């Protein structure tokens, strides 16, 4: 079971930066890292583990699947990730109906780690956009059963509000479609969702590179969840380092409050005192 120890990194500049922010809470559990990472699509289990460690993430997502009884691959994630080191967030990826998502969530909880679930009900194969009606239905069922539901959803304010109403502990609008790497396509809606919800808002899916993660965090959201941006980078470990810094940079920039932008130049040096 995840023990939630403070990070014992030797990276003092990262520690200093995080000290300017502070922890945050999802469903009553404290997290320091605002980066949540997936465990899918890595070329090897070793690269996955190295990348996740480099990312500094505490919460990692996992999927629920049939055991491969032919033992053709070593798929069991718990053979590679120590559940004492990471908070496991099981997802319902691949589910297209509320009933299926509820079934997968119950199976995940029976594994015995925690009550959290990343609820994902897909409505369309090409875009992997969420079926928000089915998501709401499943979210209500699961919240009523005591699950701590973190719901993947569209960047739609009304759905986000409804998901909060039915008891989700976090609402997770997409930046852009899953695995697309297009970055935040609608920062205005993301900001509005964050402004209107009381529960944490985690942007889930669509981040492609470090600048996308930074821009996402600059919108004021509580965190960002990504998988493909790390797993599909040429060098996943190096990209994970970059993302760790980008998330902290974007968060601190948001907290610091950016300067006003202007379409005309404003000199930085005094205009008085120039020589004749």
């Amino acid at each position: 079971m995840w023990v939630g120890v403070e990070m014992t990194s030797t990276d003092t500049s990262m520690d200093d930066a995080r000290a300017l922010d502070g922890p945050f809470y999802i469903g009553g559990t404290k997290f320091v890292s605002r980066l949540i990472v997936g465990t899918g699509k890595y070329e090897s289990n070793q690269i996955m583990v190295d990348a996740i460690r480099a990312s500094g993430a505490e919460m990692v997502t996992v999927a629920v699947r049939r055991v491969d009884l032919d033992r053709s691959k070593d798929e069991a994630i718990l053979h590679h990730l120590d559940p004492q080191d990471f908070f496991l967030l099981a997802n319902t990826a691949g589910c297209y109906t509320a009933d299926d998502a509820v079934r997968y969530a119950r199976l995940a909880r029976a594994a015995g780690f925690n009550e959290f679930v990343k609820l994902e009900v897909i409505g369309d194969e090409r875009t992997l956009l969420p079926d928000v009606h089915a998501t709401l239905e499943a979210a209500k069922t699961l919240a009523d059963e005591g699950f701590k539901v973190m719901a993947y959803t569209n960047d739609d304010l009304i759905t986000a509000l409804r998901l909060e109403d039915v008891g989700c502990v976090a609402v997770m609008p997409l930046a852009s479609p899953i695995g697309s790497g297009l970055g935040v396509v609608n920062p205005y809606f993301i900001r509005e969702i964050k402004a209107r919800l009381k529960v944490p808002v985690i942007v889930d899916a669509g981040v492609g590179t470090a600048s996308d993660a930074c821009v996402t965090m600059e919108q004021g959201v509580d965190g960002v969840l990504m998988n493909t941006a790390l797993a599909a980078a040429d060098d996943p470990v190096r990209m994970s380092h970059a993302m760790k810094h980008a998330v902290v940079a974007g968060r601190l920039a948001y907290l610091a409050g950016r300067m006003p932008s202007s379409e005309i130049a404003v000199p930085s040096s005094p205009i008085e005192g120039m020589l004749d």
Partner: protein
Amino acid sequence: MTPDTRIDIQLNGKRQSFGAGHTVTTLLEALELHPGMVVVELNREILDRENYDAIKVVQDDMIELVHFVGGG
């Protein structure tokens, strides 16, 4: 071995034959699976691990054995 000493079950979507008399515990042992690493669904009901010893596997049971794999 006479036919009635074996049972057919649907295991992870495949029809499979096992010797009769298995409990969930002995079935997992036969499959070399650690009970703490899998979740067992029997005929669409999730089983509590403490009941594995008591539950008999019978003809035509539908069993799903699931675990955590990489995912986003």
